[in-house]
């Protein structure tokens, strides 16, 4: 065991050395976009199984909002959302896989933090899901707010920000607690379900997903308090702004489509309507720009003119993706909340296409 971790330490040092060469190679190897185009597929890093975000069924089909973002990028680049190869990555592997070029985009419910943006050689392209750390308790306890958790035994993962956030929260509220920190998520869930602890804490979306694995998902409630900010989003390598823009604007295109009322169902109809109006200089200019009917906004990204149309047509707008994977009608039953559009009081805000 000690030897294994020694090796990890040695490898960590090795990665340190590798990190020097990374910026140099990124500059010389040219753009990620042309590399993706020439190999004919997008390599996308996802989680090892988090329902609603990235999860594969028995036939190997991936679903989730993290997965759909990658499909959107593939649709924008190739006009074909199936040209993605998903790579499942552990929390430890994810950033190394991105830095080494093994994957082109990391879409693995990763929290956007300052350290990660500045010290790891990667950069976040946006926030696909605004999350926060939550607390889950068995319904049988009859607890309805975090203020009643004085004296609680809490299960969580070791070595995460989760552990720090919950300690901060209980200390600043002057409540006593007992923290039982496991190395792996599966053991956290098993110990909590067995009753070793009263509270399970991780990101709220993670709680909703983990709960589905329990024998009795209805027997547990997520408390209303959010004790930290966890903005989850896709990340790319630093030093390739063109590729950063492709990922970033794919996300914005999906947000703008929802805001403009364009979905995968009605996109053809709207495009036909607007196409007739373009020549007369009439119609909704925003929709025309987004769907590639007016000026060419694809060429500046290195993409076809109808890139956003392909994303909307083949993957859907942000709202559709949300409802299909994590929304109230899915097993996760997550309300839009902070992830509603800014027009509906949420935080999701697509930058204007113009």
């Amino acid at each position: 065991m000690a030897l294994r971790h020694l090796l990890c330490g040695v490898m960590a040092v090795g990665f340190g050395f590798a990190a020097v060469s990374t910026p140099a190679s990124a500059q010389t190897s040219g753009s990620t976009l042309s590399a993706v185009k020439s190999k004919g597929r997008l390599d996308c890093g996802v989680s090892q199984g988090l329902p609603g975000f990235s999860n594969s069924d028995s036939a190997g089909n991936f679903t989730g909002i993290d997965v759909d973002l990658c499909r959107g990028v593939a649709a924008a680049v190739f006009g074909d959302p199936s040209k993605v190869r998903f790579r499942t990555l552990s929390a430890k592997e994810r950033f190394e896989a991105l830095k080494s070029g093994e994957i082109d985009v990391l879409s693995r419910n990763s929290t956007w933090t300052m350290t990660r943006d500045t010290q790891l050689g990667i950069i976040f392209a946006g926030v696909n899901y605004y999350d926060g750390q939550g607390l889950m308790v068995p319904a049988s306890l009859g607890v309805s707010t975090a203020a009643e958790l004085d004296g609680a035994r809490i299960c969580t993962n070791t070595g995460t920000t989760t552990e720090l956030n919950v300690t901060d929260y209980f200390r600043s509220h002057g409540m006593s607690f007992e923290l039982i920190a496991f190395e792996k998520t599966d053991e956290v869930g098993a110990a909590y379900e067995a009753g070793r602890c009263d509270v399970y804490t991780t990101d709220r979306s993670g709680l909703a997903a983990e709960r589905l694995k329990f024998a009795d998902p209805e027997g547990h409630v997520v408390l209303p308090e959010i004790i930290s900010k966890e903005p989850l989003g896709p990340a790319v390598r630093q030093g390739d702004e063109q590729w950063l823009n492709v990922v970033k604007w794919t996300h914005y295109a999906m947000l703008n489509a929802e805001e403009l009322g364009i979905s995968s169902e009605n996109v053809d109809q709207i495009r036909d309507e607007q196409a007739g109006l373009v020549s007369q200089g009439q119609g909704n200019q925003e929709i025309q720009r987004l769907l590639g009917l007016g000026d060419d906004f694809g060429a500046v990204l290195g993409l076809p003119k109808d890139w956003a149309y392909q994303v909307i047509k083949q993957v859907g707008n942000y709202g559709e993706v949300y409802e299909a994977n994590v929304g109230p009608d899915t097993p996760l039953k997550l309300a839009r909340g902070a992830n509603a559009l800014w027009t509906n009081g949420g935080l999701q805000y697509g930058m204007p296409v113009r």
Partner: protein
Amino acid sequence: MTASAETPSSGSSRSSGSLLYDPKVRSIFFQVALILAVLLFFGWIVLNTMANLRARNISSGFDFLGNTPGFQTVTTLGTYLMDVSGRAITYLDVLKVGLINTLLVAVLGIVTATILGFVIGVFRLSNNAVLYGFSTVYVELLRNTPLLLQIFFWYFAALRAPWVPDARGKVSFFWDNFHFNITGLYGPYPLPQTGFGATLWALVIGLILTFVMRWWAKKRQDATGKQFPIFWGAVGLILGLPLLVFLLTGAPLRWEAANFVQEGPVLRRGFQKGEGMLIIPELIALWLALSLYTAAFIAEIVRAGILAVNKGQTEAAHALGISQSKNLRLVVIPQALRVIIPPLTSQYLNITKNSSLAVAIAYPDFFSQVQISLNQTGRAIELIVIAMLVYLTFSLITSAIMNYVNSRMKLVER
């Protein structure tokens, strides 16, 4: 280096030929040169690492040990002895807590694995089919499954057992003095009162008197052939004397019972934190798994040791009229121990090192504390070096003790 070689030769005033050709001088020169080369090599590694870390803006050094960690450690013997509640703790405290917890589980594991291993090992040699069958199945089953799997098995078997009540229930035993539920095993905690020191002194005096008694009894036996009941004498001095003093000073020991509350806010019900003694289920599972696993290996070592003693030894002892029990104690076991002790040392080292699997079931042993600190501070090199030094020290101390025992046991050659 060249200068050091030339200096003695130029300053030479000896008449026995050139120092350059003196084999003694030459061997010293090459040894010094080798040591210098090794030191330079390691110095280069250290400096190179530091320079690279600095170039990458990765902070290094041991100053983080004084920083305050933003997490809490589950209550164990370590957190109790380090008294971490109610004060600002540092990463150094976090590591010390882990150190105590590792020592605790290692010592517990060594004691139970040894006892169990000897019993199973003797069963393996038994003519009784049931004992033989049981011990054979035990050894083969536990020796041939991975330890990590066994740790998980005991942990989740303990947590999920239907007869284990939840955190707000309890099962009591031993006249309501001990209790258990899913949060652990609770018992009374001894609180020494003023005057308890006399009992401890009586124990020390008892131990010293036992050694004196042994020395005297051996001398008397050598001189007169009369035997003295050393065992009962030792029991009287080590247990009886402190007990007498304890009772004479008015039993200055109070037992703090575990406090079980059934009213109030739901999360405050159950056993109260910090009252009575608590053994957490993670420790129980790890202790059980380490003991049972290692006992299977020790059983085989014991069996081999006993089989290694020639049957002729027993027959000779019987021919001399030595009784069966004395034959085992004075003839067979001392010889078997010579074979048993060296491999037993390896097993003791294994228990200490295997205890680092604790991280899987949230027992805060030394290695899991190192890992958490590593994740939170990013000081990988420093913490791995600390971990290596600590485990090396543990292993060397264990080896030293066992080598001493071995030297006492081995054949005295004249």
